[in-house]
């Protein structure tokens, strides 16, 4: 049993292409999921009962089922509804639905960490809801949110590997395709593992920098 680096060098163009697909999937996922999650988290702490219940149902319902099953819903289920979408879009939609539920729960913890006196002070000053949320609540919640946010981002990065099961050729899918062509598992799975470790190291590094930037005095 030896490690044949040539195999990876030969397949490098395809492998790098698949790394780009992983990055694209992950970046789009976070760009879409972050604002929606923040809205769901705000709905979870809203004073309107209906909004609070709807958000709680969504979050707890989605967190009960495997993300893979959500991917099957968007991949197999949506066409049954007459909606034909590409595997990449199906995977992105499914991963977004799942990630929003988990991320909203993480962000909510940050919102509830704020001193209730801040809400009262904002009310006393007669600030409107959006003004209060944007200028008072979110800036104070950010330092608390960054840690859990990046932890969730790394979990989501790892979750993009599931897109390979619904026919997206990201890094896990491409590694498996090459594995079945060459019957060499060690080389290609090592490549996939190193890709994920590198990308999550980049995220961990970004977290350290951001945390320093937004730290409260």
């Amino acid at each position, binding site marked *: *049993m030896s490690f044949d680096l040539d195999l990876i060098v030969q397949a490098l163009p395809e492998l790098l292409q698949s790394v780009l697909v992983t990055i694209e999937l992950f970046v789009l996922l976070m760009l879409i999921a972050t604002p929606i999650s923040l809205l769901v988290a705000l709905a979870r702490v809203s004073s309107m009962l209906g909004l609070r219940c709807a958000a709680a149902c969504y979050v*707890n*319902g989605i*967190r*009960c*089922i*495997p*993300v*893979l*099953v959500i991917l*099957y*819903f968007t991949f*197999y*289920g949506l*066409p*049954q*509804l*007459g909606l034909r979408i590409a595997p990449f879009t199906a995977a992105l939609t499914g991963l977004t639905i799942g990630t929003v539920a988990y991320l909203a729960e993480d962000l909510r913890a940050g919102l509830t960490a704020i001193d209730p006196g801040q809400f009262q002070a904002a009310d006393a000053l007669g600030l409107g809801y959006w003004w209060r949320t944007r200028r008072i609540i979110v800036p104070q919640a950010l330092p608390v949110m960054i840690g859990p946010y990046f932890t969730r981002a*790394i979990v989501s990065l*790892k*979750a*993009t*590997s*599931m897109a*390979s*099961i619904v026919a997206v050729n990201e890094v*896990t899918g491409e*590694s*498996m395709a090459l*594995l079945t062509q060459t019957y060499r*598992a*060690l080389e290609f*799975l090592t490549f*996939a*593992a190193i890709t*994920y*470790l590198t990308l*999550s*190291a980049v995220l961990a590094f970004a977290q350290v920098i951001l945390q320093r930037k937004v730290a409260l005095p």
Partner: protein
Amino acid sequence: MHLNFSVWLTRWPYLLQGAAISLEIVVIVLLLSTPLAMIAALGLGATNRAILYPMMAISWILRGIPPLVILFVAYFVVPQFGISLTPLVAAIAGFTAYNTLVVAELIVAGFRSVDPGQHAAIAALGLPPFRAYRRVLLPQALPSIIPPYISYSTDMVKGTALAGSIGVLELVTRANQVILATNRPFEILLGIAALYGIVDAGLMGLQAAAERLWAPHARR
């Protein structure tokens, strides 16, 4: 669209057998990984760097790559070293490796959350190490270990869905087969979502109860 759940009338025994396999994986993985995690936690909490650094590296790698890739390694790479595993055994091995390090980190964090003054008090009272752990440290660490432990067990239940990718006929794989055979994805997926929901809702209820029981303000 018209929902027609009659597909379940003939397919339910096949799908429920899959659910039984999924549950079997969860139970075996939890039974194996919990004691292993306690041993790994000793390594992660070690002061000896020759033990600490390799353990940290193993933990970083296993928690840094997707569980799906860990399963592929267990099923495709391990046989290249002469150990061939059946899909079920490979899935259990892969999930156990992952969950062991996740729970070990949890245990280490739990023990770190105990007030350092407690260690000083143990030393002052001259308590033997085993009794100190059992009577003083463990009861104080458990409240911060149990709720996330249950939460990760919920993840494990959902994680078993990945075992199908290396050929284990668990619930989601069987659902996939039935979908292809009947072309009724919505009905099948709603049903298995409900099955996962029942198990996970039970675990979430357990977690909520544990959190209430050991909420910080309820502690003395």
